């Protein structure tokens, strides 16, 4: 069993406090105290050290230690920039959306603390274009903060000044990739950039830039108030703290759950009301559609970064997709690969052409027109994409496919030999693809 359930929400605070998206309510419940404390202490380096000590890791997907990322900024006197990645596009992940809609001031407070820590006079939120409600909540909160002297010239009466901008994306999944996000933010086509130079050296408009996820940044205010040890009471040594997991699919209560990082997948599913009544879990993708799936036999795996990697998957952005025995894996895989085909930016050959090819083969398999040789082709094409694409999207496109072929190969074979779906699943509607 993992750590006990926290006494209250630290990120999804709207679950406990109604109306916390308003500045007055947020302040009433301790809002901006962490910022005030950080500004008064006036020791930016201590904030970086605190973040390092807490072991907080990036919640966007890669799980890179946040404090370490900040310390990669070159110390050359140039003004830094914080860019918050709110382009939450991973199928199965919807945590940032709820966090921004319900608790925008905590994001703003976390951003200002971060910017004070790294020395950034400007910050940007790149928000997924479809998140209109979140965009309105966030911009309203920024206006409130500006009017209250929390943003702008002389933040809370100190010498620190800060300006914050919100930019709406135009709907490309790839703009969740940090360098494609920067390109898009600069008004260019959202294609990923070559690294090096890394954003820490030359990011937005060539300036030293930190790109952090919404949830990551929202950890800062409680962390400043409560300290690193408090944070480490949850999770494991390498994966401490709380994580907002988006649970979707065949569970009774889909939604976001703020849980300690040492819970198992089974505990998480239980928190979400358990698998659909009368059914059993068939497979779980623990970290959003770009991660490999795990069969039901692995449900006792803890959700910390290391355990999931050991089990052959990854925590990713924490989008836990639960599939019960009624799920046709061929259809599910075809749907996910088609998503990546559509979202490939087109820059590099393997991702652009490979996802197109895979989609066509999978469609054929699902129709019952497959051949046994197609399975080898699927694996070989996946291998020719995996690790050879320009950015992580190529790897993401084949993770589910390769794992499904590993754990559920029989189902693929039945589609070929029976020339139809053994589960009787209707071929998905292709109109919207």
């Amino acid at each position, binding site marked *: 069993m993992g750590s006990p359930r926290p006494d209250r929400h630290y990120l999804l605070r709207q679950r406990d406090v109604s109306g916390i998206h308003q500045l007055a309510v947020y302040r009433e419940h301790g809002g901006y105290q962490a910022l005030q404390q950080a500004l008064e202490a006036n020791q930016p380096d201590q904030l970086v050290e605190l973040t390092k000590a807490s072991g907080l890791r990036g919640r966007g997907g890669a799980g890179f230690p946040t404090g370490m990322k900040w310390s990669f900024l070159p110390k050359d006197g140039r003004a830094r920039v914080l860019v918050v990645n709110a382009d939450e596009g991973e199928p199965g992940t919807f945590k940032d959306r709820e966090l921004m809609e319900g608790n925008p001031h905590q994001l703003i407070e976390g951003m200002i603390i971060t910017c004070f820590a790294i020395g950034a006079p400007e910050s940007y939120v790149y928000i997924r274009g479809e998140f209109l409600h979140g965009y309105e909540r966030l911009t309203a909160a920024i206006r409130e903060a500006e009017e209250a002297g929390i943003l702008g010239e002389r933040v809370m009466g100190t010498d620190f000044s800060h300006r914050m901008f919100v930019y709406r994306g135009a709907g490309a999944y790839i703009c969740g990739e940090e360098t494609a996000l920067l390109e898009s933010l600069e008004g260019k086509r959202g*294609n990923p950039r070559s690294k090096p130079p890394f954003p820490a050296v030359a990011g937005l408009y060539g300036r030293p830039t930190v790109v952090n996820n919404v949830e990551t940044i929202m950890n800062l205010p409680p962390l400043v108030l409560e300290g690193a040890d408090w944070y480490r009471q949850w999770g494991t040594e390498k994966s401490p703290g709380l994580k907002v997991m988006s649970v979707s699919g065949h569970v009774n209560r889909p939604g976001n759950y703020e849980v300690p990082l040492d819970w198992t997948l089974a505990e998480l599913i239980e928190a979400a009301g358990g698998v659909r009544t009368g059914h059993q879990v068939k497979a779980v993708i623990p970290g959003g559609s770009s991660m490999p799936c795990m069969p039901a036999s692995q449900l006792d795996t803890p959700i910390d970064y290391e355990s999931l990697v050991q089990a052959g998957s990854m925590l990713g952005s924490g989008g836990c997709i639960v599939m019960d025995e009624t799920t046709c894996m061929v259809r599910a895989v075809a749907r996910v690969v088609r998503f990546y085909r559509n979202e490939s*930016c087109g820059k590099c*050959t*393997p991702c652009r052409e490979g996802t197109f090819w895979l989609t*066509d083969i999978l469609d054929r398999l699902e129709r019952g027109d497959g051949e046994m040789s197609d399975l080898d082709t699927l694996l070989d094409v996946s291998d*020719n994409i995996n690790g050879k694409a320009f950015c992580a999207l190529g790897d993401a496109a084949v993770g589910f496919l390769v794992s499904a072929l590993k754990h559920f190969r029989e189902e693929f074979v039945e589609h070929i030999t029976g020339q139809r779906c053994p589960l009787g699943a209707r071929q998905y509607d292709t109109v919207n693809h």
Partner: protein
Amino acid sequence: MTQLTIDGRTISVPEGTMVVDAAAKLGIDIPIYCYHQSLGPLGACRICLVEIEKMPKLQTACTTAVREGMVVRTGGPAVEKGRQGILEFLLINHPLDCPVCDKGGECFLQDYSFWYGAGKNRFEESKIQRRKDYPVSSYILLDQERCVLCQRCIRFMGEYVGEEQLMLEGRGVHTVVSTVEGQPATSPYAGNVIDLCPVGALLSEPYHFKARPWNIEREETLCSVCPVGCASLVTGRDGRAVRLEGRPQPELNDYGFLCDHGRFTYDYTYHPRRLTAAELDGAPQSPSAVIAAVGERLARAVAEAGPESVGVLTGGTHTVEEEWALARFAQDVVGTSRLGLVKPVAGDLPLALLGTFGDLAAATGVLLLGVDPYEAVPVVHLKLREARRAHPVAVWGLGDRTLTRATLPGDDYVVEPGRVAAALGAVLGGGDLDERWQALAEGLLTTERLVVLWDGADPGAAAALAQLAARRAGPTAVLPTHGPRNWLGAVRAGIPADDAAARGILEDAAEGRLSALILLGADPIRDFPDGDLAARALERVPSVYFMGAFAPEPRHALAAILPTAVWAEVTGTYANMEGRLQVAHGAAAAPGPARPVRPLVTALARAFGRPLRLGDDFDPFADQDGDRIARPPASQVPEDPAAPAPLRIREGEWALITGEVVAVSHPPSEIAERSRDRFPLRLNPADADRLGLRPEGGLVEVSQAERRFVAGARRDARIPEGRVFVPRGLPEVPVNRLDRGAGVRVALADRVPEGVAAQ
């Protein structure tokens, strides 16, 4: 230097070198599509995958900089499978229409598929269909189905040229290259994307379906259109030049980019106006009959009036060897000293100052003296941008109009027409300068390595340039931007290229002191700065004998015409604006009776009665300076110019300004006709508004005294108010026949009146 090992061989390369370039130095070929040295790494095509020790995944050699002790393998099972996978991906949506593709046989998709591909196809699904033969400019077709999306074309236009006219459209597998907002690409550098395209996606429209690689001769040549003399390849098929491509010269750090004015005008060698018949006294004759008659008449003229009664002028477009043969004929056969070169400007550069493109690449400051290189010597503009990419370069423009531009920004100093040399002299003279001019003076004198691009129009600038070079601590190099193409080659051949030589011959002719004038490819009325003097000379001299490819007007002034072979039809040496000697090979046949100059001249000598033995005793390269012409130290400092006479511009008149525009002055070309500027004259927008010129441009009448000319004009904010810019060599408005010390009148014209059309 960084040392690394590639395929077991060790090499040291400069820090920051990409693995692919380090491998190339060892002669190890790593396939590439998206990478190009001029554009830098992109990492899109993924064909250059290599294995690097201590790195778990294959790496792209084009985006990976070398590191000390790195161990790279460019082969082996992992690399081979990776490459095969990429090639297979590139072919799944490729139409495989090699048999009808112009690039078939010259295509890296073919080559790499043969060398590195799996040799079989597993793709059984439907291919995506896209646009074929999509015209992206007047000269370029795009086949989107064959495109591998390497983005070389897009990056070249956007980053290298600075004219973003191509872009990626669509996402994922539906991504295609297209033009910005569907508008055709108009940049004069767009044609380079044909050379840059590693596959059959970007094609030359004039070459479309013209030949397969086994039908053609593809020879090393030099562009013949302007004095940059870009290294290129000429394609000959069935005796005709049908294509010009850029030719990189790594030893000169030259990527082999051309401009479209050079790339698409090779058809002048079979233009309808090309001379293909010999004529005597206006009637067609066999070449031998004309040679016999001309030789005999010349001999008689010499016998009657002495050798000095014969003048010889070259147009400076033939090879050094041919110019030398002409000089031998003039001096050894005829025995005249009246030998000169017709050039379109009166300035004479002291050759000691002659610089190189290497100087340009290293320059810290560049003065555009009267010339906008984008218009006159377009590839020099690219070279300047290239220098700017490497290090900061200050650019100053000094002329009678704005000379810098958006793609080459700098500070402009606009002066009164004809006052360029005076202004430069004033800058150097110190004196009373305002802050802005003081900054120019300081910049010119203190910049570490100065290069001056000089149009040669204001003769007095020669003295100012010599003075500038003498005053500066650092090196000063001058690159003359004026033509003709091979005038420095003529200098190498011993032909006096100074303005005084040609002017003296024309004055003698105009005053009746000459009995005959021999022209080799020269058109003095069109090209000489004083066109009226040339016209009087040609009318007055009893016999004008013309050898060349295009007959000058008026034809009735020519007693004899002997058609000559030209560029692409002979192998010979040319000198470019650096004085660099290079060899161009022939790939086409001269039409009909057109002959190379050397046999023509020896035949004339025989007919003259004094055989000329042109042994192999002349080698253009036999110089202490190797591949550049000799640059003797100035024997005398050029004279300070007399103060320019005040302009005579009356109320309501405009000042006439001019300059070289290669889009106008290139040889006649039917291919280039499609992008001919219908509005070559330019006016300031405010002036154009006052005149009521339509937004897209319109016809205007330019008149001076009783002379009236009509031509198209358009708005150009780079022209100062009250001035009208007329490109030099424009047939509709022969600016060299107007008095530029006086004003002209400009009015709207609704049509070209009869008798005013091109002369």
